[in-house]
């Protein structure tokens, strides 16, 4: 790979095709590409420095309760405000009536990346409207 500038004049020989030099348009596109590469690297480095030690921090919020043929579907959104991905995230929901648990349901979310949201649903046989509904995260594993 020690060609250096020796090739610059080779295009002059008539038997060989002229070596193409870079057009202004290509330089513009190359510059955009270069900016993107530098930007992506900088973003990742900054992210690594800023977020490295923060564990996943998951909050759950119920988005809707709908009646389906299979039961009452409680749709929820899980948001991870932490700096690491949670894998195999266990989400469980409980229906209580006056302190006593009458029904539980659970679901696993494969991956919840850092700073991102995923949606899921829990199905109950009893109507959550009449009872107290609570959702919580039981655990996760590191990917």
């Amino acid at each position, binding site marked *: *790979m*020690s*060609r*250096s*500038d020796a*090739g*610059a004049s*080779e*295009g002059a020989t008539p038997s*060989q*095709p002229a*070596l*193409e*030099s*870079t*057009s*202004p*348009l*290509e*330089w*513009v*596109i*190359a*510059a*955009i*590409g*270069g900016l*993107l*590469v530098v930007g*992506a*690297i900088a*973003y*990742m*480095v900054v*992210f*690594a420095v800023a*977020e490295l030690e923060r564990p996943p921090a998951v909050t759950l919020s119920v988005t809707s309760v709908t009646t389906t043929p299979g039961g009452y579907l409680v749709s929820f959104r899980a948001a991870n405000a932490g700096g*690491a*991905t949670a*894998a195999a995230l266990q989400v469980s929901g409980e229906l209580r009536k006056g302190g006593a648990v009458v029904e539980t349901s659970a679901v696993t979310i494969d*991956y919840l*990346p*850092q*700073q*991102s*949201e*995923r*949606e899921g649903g829990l199905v109950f046989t009893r109507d959550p409207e009449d009872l107290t509904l609570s959702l919580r995260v039981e655990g996760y594993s590191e*990917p």
Partner: protein
Amino acid sequence: MRPDPAFLRGLGRAFAGALIFALPMLMTMEMWQLGFYMDPLRLALLLALTVPTLVGLSRFGGLRPTARLRDDVADALVVLLVAALAATVTLYIFGILAPGMSGREIIGKIVLQTVPGSFGAMLARSQLGGEPEGEREKDPPTYWGELFLMGAGALFLSFNMAPTEEMVLIAYKMSAWQSVSLALVSLGLMHAFVYALNFKGGSARPDHIPAWSLFARFSLVGYAIVLGVSLFSLWVFGRTDGDSLKEIISASIVLGFPGAIGAASARLLL
């Protein structure tokens, strides 16, 4: 600044090359997941190392016969942009990029797919035709150039497999003897490829080079490069984290099998 039709054709070919080579990875679940959970510093390092590798590939193949190093750099950056575009469009259509995802997740997914896509885009010229080989200005690669091509070939094939769970799983399933056998088989296959290519079409080398010299200088050194590339790929994807030395060596040998094929046939591929 009228666009040159040959340049536009080159862009189209690069886009096609990026798709052809990156599609298996664009449709691999582990690649999406690695995009957000892999160590951001390793991802940054991978992207940073991709640029000089592309410049080297442009020297030996690439979009067009280039005159100077800075033209190779321009080609490398153009190809990266094309690959990033191809990855973004495809991932968006697949629904892998969606609202509610963080910038980190989206950028990570695109960057990770840009690496194999840019390789494909750079190879598009030699793979998908273009001018006949005879018309092209092509340097016969030096010894170091040959070793570079071997490394690039190994990286290209091992990148396809390193993200998958199967590499580590196969390593777990193999006994020590099976690992040793696989290493010997890889080395033997590599030598067979190098030997065959040396006499068929490859860069002209004097016929009187003894076989042992060819073996030591190309096959053996090549396989060492392959193992290094395999180890690097596994490490980048976090597949070595927390594993014992025995498992890391074993997984490198497993990944080195496709890597050896890629390295030995690099001169055909690239």
